[in-house]
């Protein structure tokens, strides 16, 4: 009998030191792409800018590797005139993408072609036009076109990201393009700022902040910076999330005496209670068809992920493994839910099918939090702590390498990707 505590202690310490998560890695290998941009001599600087943006986009998706132009046998001009597939097969280019950039009066025009040298085939071509001050937007459109042609999914390269930076007692809302360009504060000096969520039209952001030591829900106008409260009840006012059609915002309120999911109708300006359970219910997330809400609940003792139909069925449990599962976010294509899971005090970002099968651990990290999908469901953002500083990371949803997208010395949390 005396040995028993010792045995328990030993098993505890061994299991704590073990690696807890088998992080998922797909078999996918990035495609080698030969990328060429041609423009008249006057536009050399601009063509280089476009090339760099597109190259960075494609590499950051982890679906492509751009080949070094020094390895090219054929030159850009002759390839644009007529491609010789053999020249590209020999250097191992899975794909060739050409872009002819021309300037018309006040406009940029990009003629894009994507080839498959191994099938000797033009896969697709397109002409994209943008105003002269929108070269970056045009460049991302070129990336989107190449991505869609090859991967079959819309690119996310013209999307935007919001996150929160905390400085002492104050928090700022930071905006940037998905590639880190145009980074700037759009809202300043919030007293705590949590869970920003972008409206589908991108014009508003719903968020949780504190005014006079009281939490409240506000919409933030991206164009004017105007803040409007829409939830300031007794107790909790937290975790707002827009419905896919942008008409409703689901949130967790506790004025009934317990944290429940409620739904705000932006048109009628009225709240309606959605969950009714004495356990904690929080962090609602909508299914892409708007018919379900998944949420965190501790109704069975520990926090787990559930989903419930808007039309009012019984809640079904989604997360089956682990004693602590939180922060669900429904994938834009609806097939999976990303969430944070805990095992033996180690946290991981994971995804799972709606029926609880197909669990994949994508990343582990200290204080790993706040998963958020790219609009095309191919990438995930999350925050994690590194040397005492929270940073935002981006990782392919199909398993890949996590990349930090915020600085190593500035606090960053609560990422929100535009839809």
């Amino acid at each position, binding site marked *: 009998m005396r040995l028993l505590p010792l045995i328990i202690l030993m098993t505890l310490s061994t299991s704590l030191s073990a690696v807890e998560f088998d992080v998922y890695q797909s078999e996918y290998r990035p495609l080698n792409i030969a990328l060429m941009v041609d423009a008249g001599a006057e536009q050399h600087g601009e063509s280089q800018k476009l090339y760099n943006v597109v190259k960075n986009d494609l590499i950051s998706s982890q679906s492509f590797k751009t080949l070094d132009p020094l390895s090219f046998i054929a030159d850009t001009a002759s390839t644009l005139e007529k491609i010789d597939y053999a020249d590209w097969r020999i250097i191992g280019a899975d794909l060739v993408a050409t872009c002819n950039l021309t300037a018309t009066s006040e406009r940029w025009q990009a003629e894009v072609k994507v080839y498959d040298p191994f099938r000797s085939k033009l896969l697709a071509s397109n002409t994209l036009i943008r105003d002269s001050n929108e070269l970056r937007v045009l460049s991302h459109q070129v990336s989107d076109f190449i991505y869609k042609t090859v991967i079959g999914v819309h690119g996310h390269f013209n999307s935007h990201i919001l996150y929160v930076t905390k400085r002492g007692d104050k928090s700022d809302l930071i905006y940037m393009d998905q590639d880190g360009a145009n980074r700037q504060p759009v809202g300043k000096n919030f007293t*705590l700022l949590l869970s920003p969520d972008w409206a589908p039209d991108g014009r508003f952001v719903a968020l949780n902040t504190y005014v006079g030591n009281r939490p409240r829900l506000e919409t933030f106008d991206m164009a004017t910076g105007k803040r409007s409260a829409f939830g300031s009840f007794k107790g909790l006012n937290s975790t707002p999330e827009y419905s896919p059609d942008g008409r409703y915002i689901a949130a967790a309120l506790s004025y009934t005496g317990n944290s429940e999911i409620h739904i705000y109708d932006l048109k009628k300006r009225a709240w309606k209670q959605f969950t009714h359970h004495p356990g904690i219910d929080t962090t609602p997330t909508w299914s892409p068809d708007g018919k379900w809400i998944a949420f965190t609940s501790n109704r069975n003792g520990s926090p787990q992920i559930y989903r419930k139909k808007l039309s009012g069925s019984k809640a079904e449990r989604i997360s089956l493994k682990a004693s602590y599962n939180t922060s669900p976010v429904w994938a834009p294509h609806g097939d999976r839910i990303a969430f944070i899971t805990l095992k033996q005090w180690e946290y991981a970002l994971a995804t799972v099918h709606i029926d609880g099968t197909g669990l994949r651990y994508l990343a582990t990290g200290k204080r790993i*939090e706040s998963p958020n999908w790219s609009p095309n469901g191919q990438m995930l953002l999350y925050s994690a702590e590194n040397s005492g500083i929270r940073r935002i990371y981006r990782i392919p949803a199909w398993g890949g390498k996590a990349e930090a997208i915020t600085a190593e010395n500035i606090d960053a949390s609560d990422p929100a990707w535009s839809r």
Partner: protein
Amino acid sequence: MNQFSKLMFVALAAAALLFSGCAKKEVVSSDGGASASTHAVSSMAKKPSSNSVYFAFDSSALDAAGKATLNGYAAWLADHGGINITVEGNCDQRGSREYNLALGQRRADSVKDYLTSHGVSASRIDTVSFGEERPACTGSGAACWAQNRHADITSR
């Protein structure tokens, strides 16, 4: 501990009764409101030395020490009818920040429920949760986390 605190409560209440009895007598004999109130103050319940109660991980259950503190507050609030309080719920940094907001609220509500069941009017108690956003101890580790899982009572 619980038994003990109950005993203490009864003893305090008895003492208070005794004093108030004395005070009444004095009011009659001296006809001086001032001296009566002086006695009353000295017999009133003292504000507990700690304004915090602590919790276990992912729990909003009050332990014996927490209940003892709250018994003290229930007595003090009974004697100070003009004072309203805010209960602030807090969590340690482990787990989801959003879930911790709800957990902090539940901790504050748990304190409020205990006080109302011990005679304090619910209208005098406000609650707020800061989740893990305002840690008392900013470091890491079990000792620090234990300090951060608390609900504080502040008067307003």
